[in-house]
Structure formats: C-alpha cells, structure tokens
C-alpha cells in the first residue's frame, strides 16, 4: 500500500492508527521518503481533511484508517465527495472480517455505495501494490476520491512481490488555489444539488475508466451454460485452490466462468451482462454483507436474467466471518447442483478443552496500578463494584474489563466513555460514575465530550490513563507523547496543562505505580461534586523497558511468603507464578513496578530503589 502510493507520487499522507491499517504510515514514517509529508493525525476526521485539503491544492494524498475510523471521518468525506478533488486522493480503509483485532465486523463497502465513491479491493499483497497505484490514477482521472479497501488477511499478509526500487520524490506540481464557492461550499440547495449531479457523473465516469484500466478480469468458459463466479477482494485469492478440490469432485475448472472483481463499486455492468449472457447460474463470493449480490439481483431483474444467483440470500453462506477455499468449493457445488461432501475441509474441533486465556495488561503496565487503586477506592467508599458504573474506552485501557480487575463495564468507540458516563448520570444514577480513557483516545475524541461534561457540570470522575503512547496499535506517537519522542519542529501538548485549561477545576495527577496515593486521590475525588479529572500518568512499560529502564529491584523473601497468592489474584501480573515454597518473579519480564509488593499482606516482597 505504502510503496504503491509512493510510486504513484503521493505527497501528503495522514491517518490514525487502527489495526489492521497502521503499518502503512508506520512504514512511511520510518522510511522518511523525500518530499512526502507523513503524519499520525489526532483522529481520522482530521487526517481525511488534511488529505482532502492537499488534494484540493492539486497534490496526491492518502489517508489511512481502520473501519471504525471511517465512521469518524465520514461526515467530512460525504461533503468532499460532492466537491470532488483535483489531485488524486485515496482513502485506505481496513476491515476485519473474522475479527482478529476486536471491533465490529463492519463492511465499509457500504460507505462507498452511500457516498457514491469508487472503491477498489485487492485479493493479495501483490495486487495491493498494483491497485494502490491504480486507485490514484482512477482518482486523478475522475476527480473523485477513491477508496481502497483491504481486509486483515491481506493487510497483515507478508509476501514477496516485485516493486520498482526507490520511487522518485513526488513531482513538483503547482499548488492550486481555486476560489469557487459553487464547488467548495454547500451554501444553498442549488449548489448542493449541482454537486450531487457532478458526483453521480463522476461515478459513472469511474465505471468507464475502470473498464479502460482493465481492473476487473473476466474469463468466460469456452462453452456457455456453466456456472459463473463473481469473486470479490480477498475471496478471489482462494479460487485456484478451490478449483483443485472441485476437479476432484468432477467439476472441470474449464467449465467455470470467472469475474475477478477489483472494483467493488461501481459494479462493472458490462462484464456482469456478459456473465448473464453466458452462464446458467452465478455464484457470488464476498465476505460480510451481500452487497454485490444485491446489485446483481437488481441487474438480473433489469436485464431479465433468470438464472440462480447463489450467495447469502439464496445459498449457503453466512454474513459472519472470513471466506476461504471451502466457500469456493461449496458455492460452486451448490450452483452446479452437485453434492459436496459434508466433511470437506472441515477439521476436528478440539479447541473446546483449551484453557481460557483472557488477556490482561503487560507486566509493569501502569494501568494495573490505576485499576487496582480504583477497585480499592470503591471498596473504601463502602460501595459495591456492581453499583459503580465505570465506562471504558478503546485501547489498552479496556483491559480493565478482564480479570483480575473486572472494573470496566463497557466499550463503544473512541471517546465514548465520557458521553456514556454522562448518560448514566442524566438517567439519574446516584452512585459515582467514572469514565476511563487512554491518552491518545482522549485526544482523538474525548476532548469534545469532556467539554460537554464541563459545560453541563456532569458530576463524573474521569480517569485519563496516560501512558504517553498510542500503545495498543503498536506505539505510535500522539500529541501527548514526551517531547523527546516528538519529531523536530513538533510541539507536545501536556494533558496536565490542557485539562485544567478546559475549565476542569478539580484536577489531580497521580503516579499509578504508587498505589496508596493513587487510591487516596480517587477516594477524595469521588467524594467531590462537579467534574473531577484524575490524570494517572506513567509511561507504557513496553516502551520504558525497550529503553532499558527499570524502576526498582523486586524480589520475594522466601521465608516470609505464605503462598497466599494474593499478589497473583489481585494484580494478575504475568511476571508472577507459583513456586514450590514461594511466589516466583520472572526477572526477564518484571520491570520493577512493585505493585505486587504493595499488595502483599505478609510484606514478603522486597523492593529496592535503583538509582
């Protein structure tokens, strides 16, 4: 994706981290290509607007995000779609069928339909490199932003492919300054409807350009009357392998017609019409929603095609999860009216007895201290945990939902902890309402929600778990990351200055490695009226450990350890295990946060300050 964009002459790249889309910008930031502006923006909407501004100025731009991020950016995208662009603009969005990263199984192709924007989707890493370049060309030739959609299986695949070495810096293009309110504003019905007209015209043009560029590959079987397959995106990568199995079932691959669909939207109607004219039944292979399938049904009605269209609406497939070889084989079998062995490519399910492995925060994670303190504070206030609403947010902080903490109740979207908390208060909940959020998430979408709480004086307690990095997605720099890790010329924003400046009068800062003070501060804050914000600040232990930082030497005094295991049950720290005589601390994993020592009732864990 990144190399294709460089090859296409991209000049501005902006995005927000989100699995599985993060690697494109991570790669470009590390590569530092000459003449290319690359940044992690505060959120996806900002990133998309930066890309759009650059494209309006006549430059080629790329914005990257996961599907949830597209929801954030979509407000601007709809409007930008109406205006069109001057330089080629590509919106890279990554979906996650099969949910390997933990979010909704959203099918972002629906956004392309709703925005009337073209969307391309590759089946393999090699195709990604090609389509990344094609997307820029398509955008440039149509004046429309173009989506490039990947799914996790493609976005996270590593494969060898031929690339042109060292793409040249982006061409020096004049910076366009076009004053045209008919195009760049939505001031009035006439303007909006004229833009809507242009938008539809651009999409129609895209269908022609896509055909000229041969982005979709149609192969018609020598003989008419067989099964036709329309394979979309990642599903197309499994065709050849599926054909090997089909040959064993007596279906000759030569009898099958295939349309490999790279342009999810618009549907290439000419090629579809060819399939209608040639095939007795059609199979649609597409993960998640039956979008192409529905469009085919509409086309079939329009053109009077009466063959069966096999997929999710009529057919064996499910809207949940990934596709693979099995769907190719089963789908063709159904379309051809053949029986498919029930156990074909179905293995022995043995995972039922695998031990549950709920994930928790890393050894030395500062969030451990924050959640331990919060649980203690709730107890000290003589409240029950199931009476105190603790809303959660996106990122590592959500691990407060898991054992041993069981602190956080819910997870919605970036910044939602604050809004949901205010909703519980508005509903009339009398017990304390606490919102928890990480630093990057707070910058991303927590700011407006906190402003809302301040204006309406919603009596919530916000805990910002500030570990200084956008950690969950792989340690990206965010506006609050320490000065030393910002790039030259950038300015860090300090949450300790920012939050009080937002009108928060009850502001506290704690070190979550100090369990006692953190707990006391929470008890104090929870008893106050109005908006309270606690900044629990300590750097992510993965990052500090990478730099060789250790905080304390911690060791178990064997003679004192009673093997009560409270350190393990309370902290859940992965560095702790049960030995024969005493609890063991794995020195390779321990960073010396000493939270285990702070919870040990027998004082059997000794901590020694270093330096």
């Amino acid at each position, binding site marked *: 994706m990144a190399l294709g964009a460089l090859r296409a002459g991209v000049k501005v790249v902006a995005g927000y981290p989100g699995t599985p889309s993060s690697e494109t910008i991570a790669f470009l930031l590390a590569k530092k290509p000459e003449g290319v502006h690359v940044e992690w923006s505060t959120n996806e909407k900002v990133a998309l607007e930066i890309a759009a501004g650059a494209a309006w100025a006549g430059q080629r731009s790329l914005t990257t995000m996961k599907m949830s991020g597209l929801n954030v950016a979509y407000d601007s995208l709809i409007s930008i779609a109406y205006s069109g662009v001057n330089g080629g603009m590509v919106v890279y969005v990554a979906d996650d069928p099969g949910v*390997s*990263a*933990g979010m909704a199984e959203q099918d972002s192709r629906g956004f392309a339909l709703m925005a009337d924007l073209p969307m391309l989707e590759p*089946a*393999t*890493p*090699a195709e990604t490199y090609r389509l990344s370049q094609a997307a820029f060309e398509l955008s440039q030739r149509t004046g429309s932003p173009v989506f490039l959609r990947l799914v*996790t*299986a*493609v976005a*996270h*695949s*590593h*494969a*060898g492919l031929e690339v042109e070495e060292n793409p040249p810096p982006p061409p020096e293009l004049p910076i366009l300054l076009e004053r045209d309110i008919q195009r760049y504003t939505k001031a009035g019905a006439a303007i909006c409807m004229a833009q809507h007209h242009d938008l539809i015209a651009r999409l129609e043009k895209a269908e022609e350009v896509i055909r000229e560029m041969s982005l979709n590959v149609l192969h018609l079987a020598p003989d008419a009357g067989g099964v036709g397959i329309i394979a979309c995106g*990642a*599903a197309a*990568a*499994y065709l*050849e*392998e599926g054909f090997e199995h089909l040959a064993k079932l007596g279906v000759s691959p030569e009898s099958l017609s295939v349309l490999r669909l790279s342009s999810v939207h618009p549907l290439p109607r000419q090629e579809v019409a060819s399939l209608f004219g040639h095939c007795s039944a059609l199979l649609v292979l597409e993960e998640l929603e039956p979008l192409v399938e529905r469009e085919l049904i509409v086309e079939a009605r329009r053109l009077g095609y009466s063959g069966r269209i096999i997929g999710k609406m009529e057919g064996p497939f499910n809207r949940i999860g*990934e596709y*693979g*070889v*099995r769907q190719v084989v089963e789908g063709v079998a159904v379309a051809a009216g053949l029986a498919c062995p029930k156990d074909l*490519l*179905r*293995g*022995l*399910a*043995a*995972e*039922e*007895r*695998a*031990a*549950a*492995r*709920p*994930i*928790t925060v*890393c*050894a030395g994670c500062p969030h451990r201290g924050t959640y331990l303190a919060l649980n203690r504070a709730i107890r000290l206030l003589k409240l029950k945990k199931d009476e105190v609403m603790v809303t959660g947010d996106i990122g590592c902080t959500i*691990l407060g939902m898991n*054992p*041993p903490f069981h602190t956080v109740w819910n997870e919605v979207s970036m910044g939602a902890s604050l809004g949901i908390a205010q909703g519980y208060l508005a509903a009339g909940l009398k017990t304390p309402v606490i919102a928890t959020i990480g630093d990057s998430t707070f910058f991303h979408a927590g700011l407006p929600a906190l402003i809302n709480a301040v204006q309406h004086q919603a009596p919530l307690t916000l805990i910002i778990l500030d570990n200084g990095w956008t950690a*969950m997605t792989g340690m990206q720099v965010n506006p609050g990351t320490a000065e030393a890790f910002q790039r030259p010329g950038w300015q860090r924003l300090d949450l300790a200055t920012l939050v009080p400046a937002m009108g928060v009068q009850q502001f506290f800062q704690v070190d979550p490695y100090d369990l006692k003070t953190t707990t006391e501060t929470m008890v104090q804050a929870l008893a106050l009226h109005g908006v309270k914000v606690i900044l629990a600040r300590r750097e992510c232990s*993965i990052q500090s450990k990478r730099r060789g930082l250790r905080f304390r030497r911690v060791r178990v005094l064997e003679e004192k350890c009673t093997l009560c*295991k409270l350190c*393990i*049950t309370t902290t*859940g720290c*992965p560095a702790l*295990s*049960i030995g024969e005589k005493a609890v063991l601390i794995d020195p390779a*994993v321990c960073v010396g946060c000493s939270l285990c020592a702070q919870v040990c009732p027998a004082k059997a864990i000794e901590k020694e300050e270093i330096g």
Partner: protein
Amino acid sequence: MNNETTQPFDIYLVGVGGQGVLTIGEILSEAALAQEIPANFYPTKGMAQRGGFVKAQLRLGRQASGANIPERSADLVIAMERSEGLKAVRFIKLGGDFIVWDHVWAPTAVMLEQAPYPTLEHLSEQVHGAGGRFHDLHPHDLPKGLSENIFVLGVALNNTALGRLLQPELVRAKIEERWPEAAAKNADAFRRGLEVYR
C-alpha cells in the same frame, strides 16, 4: 529452485505471545523467498503483546494464495504451547505432522487451580483422531538459555517434508542474520533440533 514444480506446503503455527511463534514464521518466510519459493505469511496476534493466543499461517509454494489455510489442510502444525495446540487440530491434514513443544503456559485461573488444563495425552488423542502424526518435544530436553523456537524449527526441518523444501543451511543463515550477537547459542539450539529424530 524452480518454483513451478514446488509442491505447496502449508504451516499452521500457534502459541502464546512471547514464545517466538511469529519469529518462526518470519524466518521460514525469509528462507523460502531466498529460495524463490512463493510465500505468504499471515500472523495474527490479536490484542496481546504477551501472554495471549498467537497464531500464524505460512503458505509456501503457491504463486498467489489466500492467507488462510483451509481446515484439514496444513502439512505441518507447530504448537509452542500444549493447550493452544488444541486450537490447531482442526487444521492438520491427514498424515500431516503435528509438532508440539510441550510447554505449559498456565493462565492465572489454571495457576490458581480454578480452571482445568488439558493433558498432553488429550492433545495427542485429538491429533491422532484428526489423522495427524504427533511429535511431542519436552522443555526439559533443551538446556536452559537456548531458544526453544529455534530448537523446534530445527526439529521441524529434520522430521518433516519441510526439510526437503527448505535448505536447513539457509534457514540457519537466516537465523544468524537476525541475531548476529547470539549466533553461537542459536546455532547450538538449531543443531540440537536437527539432531532430534522422531
């Protein structure tokens, strides 16, 4: 090597974050590409930095392939943790090799004896039930301080068809390239793996 004649070979890897599961896949991918064998490596680490379920799929010898190995299709499964090995059983093909490094990485609930944990016999029965060839390796057979993933890599090359596809010498060179400072130790772990006959 003429990749037109390369038989496809699929490897399914499972374990726990921190065991070097993904590293095995990366080294094998690099070795394959160096031999001009097409490779697609698809790691899945979920949300876990460490201590969570990790899987990876390496597909060798197909010019263009989807990233996911179909069930009942893996020529080789490498499980670096006993319980996680159960999650790979559905992917082993008839007659495929299933190597388990019999490490027990107990989740907290298991450590506290609040949750059950599968026996090695149970895993072995499941693998046999699925038609796989079971090879168990035991942590006490490897001197402390040597990398278990490198050892297992050696075992896989010596005991499965993988050794006919990838040149062990090239794999060894890729390991050395990756950790030049630990070359001797890793060479030792790798050699010990290559000397295991199952």
